[in-house]
């Protein structure tokens, strides 16, 4: 990946992150930190990796993306809006009655291939999709984004086993690990060994770095029948994480905090001041 490309993706991600702060702030939803941390990864997927186009959103051989990682939903919606699946104005009614953008992914939203299902449930849906695509001789790949908390759900491991025994080489699970600390690191290591023992190919990557993401994804070997799992470490940047409620999953942001977060993001894009055109 060239530096120019990276700069372009960084710029898109900055806009996506601003919209995440706005939509979560307006919805009075809880902390957008996990979504902000995931923005680069999703921008990489939607702009560089996934074979999906808003103009052909029912094309049978498109790639699929499913997720039951609810913390990631604002980032997903912001990406889908920026890439053109629906207008950005939909973001401002996220989580409201009758909205296109439901709290959890729903088939009514353009660009969403599967309902989120229950916790840990999206991997099983991805397995079914892979089987159907293989029956149709299509080369689409199925991507499943999981939060690290979902790894504790038993149903997920049923699907880990069945994906491996079916030889679903076109299945790519992505695990978002956004918390640090020694206990977490030990758990992540155990998870990685678990996937490997079940017959998956395991990769690890810094989920915030476009160059590294590109080298991991473009090296995936889809002729190999092993399903793939990418353990992506993500982190909210230092400056934003100083805003307390941003990282608090139980407390909505206040208007002031939202403005502060936006101004921090704005400063980086060089325009300065609080960007308020959404009101």
């Amino acid at each position, binding site marked *: 990946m060239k530096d120019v490309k990276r700069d372009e993706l960084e710029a898109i991600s900055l806009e996506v992150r601003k919209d995440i702060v706005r939509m979560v702030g307006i919805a009075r939803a809880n902390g957008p930190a996990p979504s902000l941390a995931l923005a680069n990864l999703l921008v990489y997927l939607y702009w560089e990796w996934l074979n999906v186009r808003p103009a052909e959103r029912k094309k049978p051989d498109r790639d699929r993306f499913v997720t039951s990682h609810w913390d990631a939903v604002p980032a997903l919606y912001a990406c889908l809006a920026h890439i053109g699946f629906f207008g950005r104005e939909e973001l401002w009614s996220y989580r409201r009655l009758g909205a296109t953008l439901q709290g959890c992914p729903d088939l009514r939203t353009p660009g969403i291939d599967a309902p989120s299902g*229950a916790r840990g449930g999206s991997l*099983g849906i991805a397995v079914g999709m892979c089987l159907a695509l293989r029956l149709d001789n299509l080369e689409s790949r199925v991507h499943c984004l999981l939060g690290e908390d979902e790894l504790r759900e038993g149903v997920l491991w049923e699907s880990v086993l069945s994906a491996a025994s*079916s030889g679903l080489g076109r299945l790519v699970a992505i695990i978002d690990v956004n918390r640090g600390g020694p206990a977490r690191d030990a758990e992540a290591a155990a998870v990685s060994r678990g996937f490997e023992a079940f017959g998956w190919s395991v990769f690890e990557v810094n989920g915030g770095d476009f160059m590294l993401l590109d080298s991991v994804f473009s090296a995936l070997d889809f002729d190999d029948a092993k399903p793939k799992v990418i353990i992506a470490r993500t982190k909210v940047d230092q400056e934003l994480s100083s805003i307390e409620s941003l990282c608090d999953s139980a407390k909505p942001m206040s208007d002031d905090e939202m403005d502060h977060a936006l101004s921090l993001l704005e400063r980086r894009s060089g325009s300065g001041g609080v960007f308020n055109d959404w009101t």
Partner: protein
Amino acid sequence: MTGRNKSGSFSGYLEALSEILRDCPDAVVLESVSGDKNRSDNSRRIRAPIAEQDMVLTASGLALTGKRVFVLAPDLPLYVARGYEQIRASVAVPGVNVILSSVQDGDLLDRDGSVRQMNEDFALMRLLPNMAVLAPSDKRCAYVLAHRLLERDGPAYVRLSHADVPNIYEDDDSNFHVGGARLISEGDGVTICANGVMVAEAVKASHILAQQGIMAEIIDCYSIKPFPEQALLSSVRRTGCCVVAEKHADVAGLYGAVAECLCENYTVPARSVAIEGDFGQSGTPDELQEYYGLTHREIVHNVVQVWAMRRR
């Protein structure tokens, strides 16, 4: 009424599925297999080792990619309970074309006892919006309903049976529909709503009742949801009383559907012949049917009671 060959609704359903696989390129059968058999999923008859919740999710994924999925799990009577959250969130909420089926009887299962005997399946599935609930009464009925489900969009649950019941319908009978019902015998004394294996018991009961001068009108309520309201109402308007017979808990199954319909439209005395507030236990199918009172004698007993109170 034919009663020539004996065989359960499960065999009729299987026969239909093999025709559907042959004729419909979008159809997929997802079948759970016990033991250490390997997964085979390169044909449209996918066999997978038992993992109930993953099986439901896989069915959803197949359906979301354009397949019409028939889930066949004859050895897993409880998967609708174990996979309930998956059925709810990934099948019923998106309303995809997944047809769930299960078998709730058989010699092995009945000897396994309470943990493996599921008497709440109609109730659980009825609760889910979008979900149709069917309980075919014989081989032919199951065969035709499988084909009907292929023509219809949305999820459904079909309860099948291994029980060796006499055939009720002729082999060329095709008058079965999702949301339909069949009048098996006409009468003006009492309405008996039954489904599955209890239809045969209702028929036996009607012979005894006829000797006592009560002419029973038997409705085969093979479709619990959508519920055939008009068939029930036009019958109870003449008979003025009703007995429901089902191999299910006495709550929220067919009796629940009948009672809701009667309360809203035309109230008549009604009684239920079902499993009352109890789990199962080990036994032979015949012993269990006797123990839990799922018999023609129990139907007769209840008919006599409601008949005495009938609305005139």
